[in-house]
């Protein structure tokens, strides 16, 4: 590379600063800004995104102000404009508030559980023998690789009321009768199962990412803290976590975005028709549109969902820009 450096340095007015990438570097290379090339290169991608993501998004917003059902669909009629009627229907419906509360509660609980367990596992990985660490990593890799749908089907089988292994194992406890126990009859138990699926599947990403982050924590810093008399908890709180913070912020934000959009697990576990106690925003929007054929109302729910997430999304983007990788 050093051979390459020499001819690339033009008789520059400024001394050759030892910062090849960065603001000064980019200014010097203003030549690369030229022409229609960047536009031509990005055009196909932008057209595809605009056509199959941008337009549907706008259409979704328009639809949310319209009434569109099977009648209009089959007769190929234009949807009726209904103004804010769909939104009024949502906001005056107590189901909406229950669904939002349920979605938020699930997101908070599942993200917290995934984060705490993931961080615990990451810390644990640094304390175990190498062979144990490899076993942990292999197990997590498999879990991470399992597709969402397959994972959900797997757990359906594990908690099956007649022949599920979980009922059998719990039944073996003295004095407990769990034969033919149905986990989804009681929504609280059902949600425990759904949360378990999500947390189980979410731990590998968090643990492995945070473990990679932990290797970046300078050993000298930890040693200094210990020498100064910090307890293990203090070391974690005052040294490790602050260094991990940027990474923690990103994985937390991503987890919030993913878990808020919970769909697959609920949809599959409830055989495609979730009962009221199992509806979250995404499944509710889907059911309203495709099961009840009320596309306008479904779109309105989807719009509200995106709006509720917007703050978190904006935060994520700000972080990505702040870190500077985007530059």
């Amino acid at each position: 590379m050093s051979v390459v450096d020499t001819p690339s340095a033009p008789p520059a007015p400024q001394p050759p600063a030892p910062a090849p990438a960065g603001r000064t570097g980019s200014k010097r290379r203003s030549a690369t800004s030229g022409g229609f090339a960047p536009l031509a290169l990005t055009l196909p991608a932008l057209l595809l995104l605009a056509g199959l993501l941008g337009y549907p998004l706008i259409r979704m917003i328009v639809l949310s102000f319209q009434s569109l059902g099977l009648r209009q669909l089959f007769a190929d009629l234009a949807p009726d404009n209904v103004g804010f009627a769909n939104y009024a229907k949502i906001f005056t419906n107590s189901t909406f508030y229950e669904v939002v509360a349920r979605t938020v509660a699930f997101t908070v609980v599942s993200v917290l559980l995934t984060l705490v367990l993931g961080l615990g596992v990451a810390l644990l990985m640094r304390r175990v023998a190498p062979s144990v660490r490899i076993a942990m990593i292999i197990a997590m890799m498999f879990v991470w690789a399992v597709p969402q749908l397959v994972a959900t089907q797997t757990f359906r089988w594990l908690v099956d009321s007649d022949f599920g292994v979980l009922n059998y194992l719990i039944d073996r406890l003295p004095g407990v009768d769990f034969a033919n126990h149905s986990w989804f009859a009681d929504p609280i138990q059902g949600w425990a199962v759904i949360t378990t699926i999500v947390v189980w599947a979410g731990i590998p990403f968090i643990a492995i990412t945070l473990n990679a982050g932990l290797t970046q924590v300078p050993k000298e810093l930890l040693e200094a803290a210990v020498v100064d008399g910090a307890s293990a908890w203090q070391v974690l709180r005052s040294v490790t976590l602050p260094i991990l913070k940027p990474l923690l912020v990103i994985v937390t934000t991503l987890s919030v975005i993913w878990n808020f959009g919970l769909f697959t697990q609920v949809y599959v576990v409830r055989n495609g028709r979730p009962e009221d106690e199992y509806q979250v925003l995404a499944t509710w929007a889907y059911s309203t549109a495709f099961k009840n054929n009320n596309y306008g109302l479904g779109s309105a729910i989807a719009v509200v969902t995106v709006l509720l997430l917007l703050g978190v999304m904006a935060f994520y983007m700000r972080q990505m820009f702040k870190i500077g990788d985007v530059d």
Partner: protein
Amino acid sequence: MVATAPQTAVRKRRRRPARESDTPTVGRSRGGTVLANTVGVLFAIVMFFPVYWVINTAFKPAPEILQFEPTFFPHTFTLDNFKSAFNAPFFQQDLLNGVLVTSGAVLGALLVGFLAALAIARFRFYGRKAIILVVLSVQMVPFVAILIPLFLMLQKADLTNSLLGITLVYIVLILPYTVWTLRGFIQAIPRELDEAALIDGASRFQVFWKIILPLTGPGLVATSVYGFIQAWNEFIIINTLNDQAHQNLMAWLLQNQTSRGTFWGPLMAGSILTALPVVIFFLIVQRNIATGLTAGAVKG
């Protein structure tokens, strides 16, 4: 470990360079503690158990599956479940569909995405940040949200129940990540290489063809594998837009459950067949996926 700490503090030997014997808390004995190792092994077992249970079930004959007291190893080892899954209605059709749609989507996204990534990584132009913003943000829109208009749109264009329609949708599904990751790979190639080539008389196209493309090779592989996984795993959209003859294996796995009760043996065998390519591919490129999602958060 904690007990020794205050003692050290009292003596205030801050400046002394730490010797290995001084740092029990940080260094941790090489083998780890018994407690930590036990917890670690237990964790690995609990995590892996569901995966194991799928495999265990898939190789059991039906009577052995349908009993309250399960067998933790198949007593009778059978491949019947795999046979019946493979010969089930639509399995082979959906397998072929999945391969076609997924490879079409990956190739399309790679082609389109690479050009866009090149522009973002190598040019500074008006609207560049806006494009990055778009790429980053569309990744976060819950896809279920635009499913409704997408369905209406494709229906009008006569692209439901077609492999072409769903391939286009999947291209868009994996495009943002493709652009974002490839941008990182291209940026990692020193600009000086481009410039040296340009000064030596190479055209811009030659720079692209002879320098950037070969050096991005591993990145292209990793990105396409991730795209493959995403497209292969998708079932909500394809299940909504297409009938069974135009779906993929994931959607098949869903149908298998809802239509006529659940046959656990074939379902678990089908799950293995469906997940196998993904698991293999995933294990190959795992490292790249993790860094792509959190790009830059760890300053190396």
